[in-house]
């Protein structure tokens, strides 16, 4: 399959200012040197706990936030990607690399070029109550992307809006309503309609089912699957709910404190997790089966603050299998075969 998104060493830091003159005293390394590859047409799951940087990563990839380093190649053909890989390792300052980056690297796009790219990548937020403008009617909210991207206006726009709303399961009469007149699940569908009305190629789903009821979740997940087949979309599914990610993603990556610690195909990861954090995370999911007695690894302590991450491997203070090297050296992602990558000194 072709690669749609390839990030290389993506970094997003937030500066913490303090003092009278508001100088930078520390940095929150929300996303630190992340390199992932998302293939066209797949659903890529991203899991982790709060504060690990998954939402930041999603928003940085679609340029809602400006990265502090690294590159994001969008829809570049595979030969060029290989070339870029070689150049980045051997000759990072070459003119050819600069040329390729100017053409494909999202992290340096600006102005109208960036705005034009936004048509191809969209986002659905976690909480539908705050992600819809409470003073705009549904038809205006869903129709706005068409007007802004200059795709259609007037009657043509209205037709497309109604078409999209029907696809997500709402009726034509409901276009003339305010968001607060709908239930949570319906509001989330409106948000999905807004994201998809411009027919993007890539959609970031930022915990889309966390704020809705359990019985509505299944409906929304069905909707996502259908739309993916129907419109040929590529998803980045961010969630902290591992059971849902297991059902909908093709490949899954686990993040901890700004770094990807393991990623693999879904069945592989859930059957055979290797990184100690991934093992603990998967074991912590409560299973709706009271007869099951499981081996539980209860992690001590809490996630440390991303302002001062521990040296060496970031998980070492809580790791049950910590070794001496873990305290000094940061592990790199290594390919253990079968598409299974782990960043741990045990391997």
């Amino acid at each position, binding site marked *: 399959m072709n690669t749609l998104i390839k990030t290389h060493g993506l970094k997003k830091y937030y500066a913490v200012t303090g003092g009278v003159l508001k100088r930078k005293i520390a940095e929150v390394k929300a996303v630190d040197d992340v390199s992932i590859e998302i293939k066209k047409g797949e659903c890529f799951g991203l899991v982790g706990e709060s504060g690990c940087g998954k939402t930041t990563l999603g928003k940085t990839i679609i340029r809602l936030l400006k990265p502090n380093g690294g590159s994001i190649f969008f829809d570049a053909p595979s030969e060029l990607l290989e070339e870029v890989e070689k150049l980045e390792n051997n000759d990072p300052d070459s003119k050819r690399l600069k040329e390729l980056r100017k053409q494909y690297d999202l992290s340096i796009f600006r102005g109208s070029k960036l705005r034009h790219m936004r048509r191809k990548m969209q986002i659905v937020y976690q909480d539908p109550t705050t992600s819809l403008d409470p003073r705009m009617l549904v038809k205006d909210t869903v129709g706005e992307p068409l007007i802004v991207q200059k795709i259609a206006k007037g009657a043509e726009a209205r037709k497309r809006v109604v078409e999209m709303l029907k696809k997500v399961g709402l009726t034509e009469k409901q276009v003339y309503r305010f968001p607060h007149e709908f239930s949570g699940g319906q509001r989330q569908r409106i948000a999905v309609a807004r994201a998809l009305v411009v027919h993007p190629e890539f959609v970031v789903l930022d915990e889309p089912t966390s704020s809705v009821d359990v019985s509505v979740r299944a409906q929304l997940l069905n909707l996502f699957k259908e739309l993916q087949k129907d419109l040929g979309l590529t998803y980045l599914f961010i969630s902290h709910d591992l*059971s849902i990610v297991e059902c909908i993603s093709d490949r899954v990556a686990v993040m901890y404190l700004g770094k990807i610690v393991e990623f693999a195909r879904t069945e592989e990861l859930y059957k055979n997790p290797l990184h100690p954090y991934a093992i603990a995370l998967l074991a912590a*999911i*409560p299973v*709706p089966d009271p007869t099951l007695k499981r081996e539980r690894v209860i992690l001590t302590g809490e996630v440390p603050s991303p302002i001062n991450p521990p040296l060496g491997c970031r998980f070492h203070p809580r790791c049950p299998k910590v070794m001496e090297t873990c305290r000094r050296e940061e592990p790199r992602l290594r390919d253990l075969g079968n598409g299974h990558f782990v960043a741990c000194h045990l391997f």
Partner: protein
Amino acid sequence: MKDLLEIEDLVLKFYTYEGVVEALDEVNLTLKEGETLGLVGETGCGKSMTALSILVLVPSPGKIEGGHIFIEQGEKRLDLLGQKEPFLRKIRGDEISMIFQEPRVYLNPVYTVLDQISEVYMQHRLKELCQMAIKEIDNEIESGKAGSLAEFEKSMCRELLENPTSPMLEIAARIPILNRYKRRLKRILRKEVVEILKNMEIADPERVVDMYPHELSGGMAQRVIVAMALACNPRLLIADEPTTNLDVTVQLQILNLIRTLKKKYGSSILYITHDMGVVAELCQRVAVMYAGSVCEIAGVMEIFKDPLHPYTKGLLESIPQPGKEFKSIEGTVPSLINPPTGCRFHDRCPYALEVCAKTKPKMIEVKKDHFIKCHLFTGDQE
């Protein structure tokens, strides 16, 4: 096991601009002593309102319009809905405690952890505190290490023990030299609070005790809330989705904590959640609620093995399983302003009968310790 709490035909209505919201419609529930009962349902089904009704703390414009909430107090069986406010205030925090979903919202941001837990302590365990203080003073007098004002302090503590609202104490509290007796009480209180926090498995309790709520992480704040709730050894702990907003690993820690504490203190727990996984982990009996009434109550093994009510079946089937298709329940939760007639689930029920749209089913015991409210079972009672 004896019954601790019994809710009988509870009716709760909210009078709003848009109409009358019939939030609770003849809720029937029993909680036995020493057990963990899980209350499961979706948003808007009335679980939080049931919990608040037990404490008689329903916010306006809600009014409890019918039913009884019986609690066993020794030999007597009291109806909480008929009691006056002073009695209820004694019960809240002391016999029935509640912990909530978003811990930092329920902690007062301008008071430290010590202040907040002390408040609960002072409200309900003042006598113990005074007795401890008096014992300490006696020890000091015996060992000869007493200060010059020891007798005075002892008399003040005794006064506090017998007559907490006496005017003498009020005056003494305001005069700087005479309110020294408070210092001893504060010291003892601090030790007790640190001990409680240590029981909550909080690392470094001496430091945490002086922190403000915004400095705590989600998991720690939730532990502080649990500490406040258990400070007085309540007989019933109501937990309203306490781990929904927490990370999965922190959730595991908190669930473990609740389990250990339950074994240690022997309280009963009413655990409200929408996560069937947590229910399977923690609870011994489960009650399923839909649109304002309880539709099925059974033991946890029974409910997962053999769910009888169509809603329970639908709920269990809609849990996403990998590899299988996602099944969901048709339709949406009805608005409670004009609820459907008869059984409130009939318009979404795949097995609906004609009678379901007309009359409300009654709660019957269809198997041993397995109660259900459904017309499909009123015919064949086993």
